[in-house]
């Protein structure tokens, strides 16, 4: 269960730190990529994968705003039937991370950072290049279901065929 949060935690850390460090100053100047990166935190999955050719409304400001207050959800459109769940503290390569995730139905509509790594400067440096890519992946991975999973070859010794079937059904 805890492991489920690790990837999300990393994304949240990276994306929110982008928002914090660069801030609104560059919001207009840095162009579509930054807007897309920040919007991954606050925008419902409906806009998955489209690198913001449309204006990104309040998504980017709310991303940095919620992270500094360490709680709360964004004011994104999908407000009905939401639930916010706090994840456990996860140890990541960049330090401990804890996030809360807001679901609307089964879709993630917001990821809020509750705890972040100490050396965030370093993680920003490492990941800044990848952030625009991450944003899109965060959005697209919220797809309703996954038919099958690709990964490095696993052997039948470690993974029985029934496991494969379970993975396929995810």
């Amino acid at each position, binding site marked *: 269960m805890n492991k489920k949060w690790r990837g999300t935690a990393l994304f949240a850390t990276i994306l929110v730190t982008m928002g914090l460090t660069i801030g609104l100053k560059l919001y207009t100047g840095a162009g579509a990529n930054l807007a897309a990166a920040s919007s991954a935190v606050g925008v419902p999955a409906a806009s998955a994968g489209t690198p913001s050719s449309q204006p990104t409304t309040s998504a980017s400001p709310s991303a940095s705003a919620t992270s500094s207050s360490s709680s709360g959800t964004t004011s994104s459109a999908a407000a009905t039937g939401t639930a916010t769940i706090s994840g456990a503290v996860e140890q990541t390569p960049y330090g401990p991370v804890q996030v809360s995730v807001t679901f609307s139905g089964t879709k993630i509509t917001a990821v809020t950072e509750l705890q972040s790594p100490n050396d965030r400067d370093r993680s920003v440096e490492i990941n800044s290049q*990848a952030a625009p890519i991450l944003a899109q992946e965060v959005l697209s991975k919220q797809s309703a279901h996954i038919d099958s999973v690709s990964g490095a070859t696993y052997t039948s010794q470690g993974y029985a065929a029934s496991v494969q*079937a379970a993975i396929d059904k995810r």
Partner: protein
Amino acid sequence: MRHVQTVMGFPISVDIRDAGDFTEGVASAFDALSDADRRFSSYRRDSEVSRINRGLHPPADYSDDLREVLAVGASVQRSSHGAFALRVPGGAGLDTDGVVKGWAVQRAADILARAGAHNFCINAGGDIVVRGNADEHSGWNIGVRSPWDATTMIAVFSLHDEAIATSGAYERGDHIVDGRTGLAAHADLASVSVIAPSLTMADVLATAVFALGADGLEWAVHDYQCSVFAVRSDGSMITAGPLPREAAA
């Protein structure tokens, strides 16, 4: 219908979304996989590959299947400047595993298609061929797992008539060897996924790019029709080529 069977040491699942009974087609596909295992496995003393390595099988007697597999390996060995190789320094001779898995599963998919299946997905221990659609409206949503957590998806791609293979050292230790040194590929990449028209190429290219490291992404999309999605050891991601990012809802 769904079917799961272990062949060549890993589980292979078939998920057919067409109506109808494809029992025979599936059986033929798995027969072909078992044939490939008998012919190419270095763990079987009587396999063609083992006989070559014992000096009992001259090139003139090579089977057509073996020639096909060797040709794929030789081509990628040339273009990767040796990073991918079927004979590595210090190795036990010819080892066709780097080609056979993708090649054999692609052949199984072709057999299933000839048996009349139009919409299906074969997952062979994490390497996947898809045909057609998962339902009337959308392609197959294929997740790529995190190198650090099998239950976390780091990307989802919507695929139609293509294949995706992922290489990494996280499941079986350092099982990817740099063909130039014979040593474990010292990876600046944690995971490499290649999307290509056939699993034969996707599988080989994922291995080659893993051995080449981050520079391998541009090489692959320059020399082959494919797209590459990779995760670096620090967790960041890099891509090359057009990726079908938008998964269907």
